[in-house]
């Protein structure tokens, strides 16, 4: 896969047999790209589908996008884009929280995943501390972050969610949080 300047963004291959089919996902920004395809079969079919992701994203924690409870946000970690996107949630009281994370990444020959990390800042002068980390090895997972000694609840405050490339994973994702 190449960008408009013919710079290679990605290359790999996949073993297939006579009637195999596979789907691989790429995250890209808007623009023109080229696919160079070579197969050892005498015929093949190549199809594409575009899926738009609508969320505004921020590659810096200082610009983290607020996630409202129960509202799904989608985003893209593009091959030719920043390595991370930052979001935040606010708890006005101590609550049990779950975060549903879905990923459309990888596929045949395109390895890597999307990792979801959750950070807490306990006070204005503290550095963010990691409380939960998830590598999205499957397309859909639910995170149940908690702080130790707090009955599985998160104290009131602001929590930051970093969605980042894991082993150069790229593609799309969605996030939604709610009480549990």
């Amino acid at each position, binding site marked *: 896969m190449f960008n408009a300047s013919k710079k290679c963004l990605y290359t790999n291959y996949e073993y297939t047999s006579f009637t195999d089919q596979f789907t691989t996902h790429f995250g890209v920004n808007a623009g023109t790209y080229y696919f160079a395809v070579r197969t050892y079969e005498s015929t093949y079919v190549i199809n594409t589908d575009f899926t738009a992701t609508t969320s505004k994203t921020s590659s810096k924690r200082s610009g983290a996008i607020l996630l409202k409870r129960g509202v799904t946000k989608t985003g893209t970690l*593009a091959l030719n884009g920043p390595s991370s996107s930052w979001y935040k949630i606010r708890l006005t009281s101590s609550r049990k929280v779950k975060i549903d994370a879905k990923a459309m990444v990888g596929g045949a020959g395109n390895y890597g995943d999307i990792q979801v990390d959750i950070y807490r800042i306990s006070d204005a002068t503290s550095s963010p501390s990691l409380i939960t980390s998830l590598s999205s090895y499957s397309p859909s997972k639910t995170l149940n972050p908690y702080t130790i000694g707090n009955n599985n609840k998160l104290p009131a405050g602001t929590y930051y969610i970093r969605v980042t490339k894991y082993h150069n994973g790229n593609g799309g994702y969605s996030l939604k949080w709610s009480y549990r």
Partner: protein
Amino acid sequence: MNKRKISVILLSAIMAFTMMFAGTSSVFAADSTTIPTLPDDLTNAPELVSGSGFNAANPDTSVYRVYKLIAP
């Protein structure tokens, strides 16, 4: 920033082909498994459009066929 995610489906060697792609797409020789260098002229590269695709005849497995894709 307007971003798009793309799924690419590559399906090999289906017997029920009713049409083989035989356009004037750009092809070029591959000398190894290293990263290919695209040819200068890609004006004839067929465009992959969302929701559609190509059935491609591939008589020479030593060449790459190049497709253009415009992410909106």
